[in-house]
């Protein structure tokens, strides 16, 4: 280990980096969720507009 900086600095880097990774993974899951939700909602809603019975 090169011992880059103090322990506090190292922990901070870790927190930021892991935060970014969590964000990226979260984005992927949200993408799927929102696509499915979008088509589920719009599919039902739009279809009823045309065929009310």
């Amino acid at each position, binding site marked *: 280990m090169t011992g880059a900086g103090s322990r506090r600095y190292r922990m901070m880097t870790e927190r930021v980096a892991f935060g970014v990774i969590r964000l*990226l993974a979260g984005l992927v899951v949200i993408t799927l969720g929102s696509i499915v939700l979008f088509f589920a909602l719009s599919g039902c809603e739009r279809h009823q507009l045309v065929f009310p019975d």
Partner: protein
Amino acid sequence: MTPAMSEGDVQMSSLSAGGNQDSNSTTSVVELKVQEGLPKYFFLAAASTSLLVMALIMIFLFREGLAIFGKVNPVSFFFGKAWYPTYDPPEFGILALIVGSVSVTLFSSLVAIPLGVGTALYLSVLAGPTVREYVKAAVELLASLPSVVLGFLGMVVIAPAMQQILDVPTGLNIVSASIVLAIMAIPTITSISEDALYAVPRDNLEASYALGATRWETMSRILVPGALSGIGTAVILGMSRAMGETMVVLMVAGGAAQIPSSLFDSVRPMPASIAAEMGEAPFGGEHYHALFAIGIVLFLMTLIFNLVATYISNRFQQKGASTL
């Protein structure tokens, strides 16, 4: 079960099969050979179908596609900027289509690589067992979304939104097509990268922790470098997927056969051109052959991507802790 164990299994079972044959030498050897040999060749034949299909794909693509070079000079075919297949006289220059394909592939990988690799890192380093199962299932479901559905999403949501927010002439452009293509490439990148991260020997990680490194230092200096060839393979296969994807670029890229001057220009990537025009191209005509020739170019480009990916993953395979 670890890969090493399953290799052992195969060896052991083939050993015991040999022993079995020897002990049965009282029954007719010929009969036994037939009993054991015939199924083997049957299964070999089945396994060879994939090779046969690859060969047939090449034969038929070339058979139908090479005919165009009898009428159009290969140089003007590959480097001609004008794609006017229905004009009289028609012009068959596919440079704009190639540039279109390359631009959406590159830009989509810019979006897909951080998201795909990030998710893989999350799965292998940060996620707990339960969350991991769910996130993996989500990635798998993302991969299963039909391309026409994502293309539709691009048409009705992403393109209009982009047109309004960024005030560009058309929302059907390189950027919106790339965003949708990235959604399709992410699962490929994530699952292959995750396998690669998983294959890094635990010993190396533990040695790093023992030296006092934090989780982040271990991840960035031991885990990722150890899995780099696998991540590279993942990225290349993801790009290959994006390049060959048809419906998304057909519906979202705009379809203008021009060399783009900005990221917000419409393009007509190769798969889009094939899919859109094959229905109208008179069978056996020049246009028909030209579309097959585009198919050859597309096939060869993705084939090269795949061969490079295979080469990297074979060449730099981690063979256990001792190779580091």
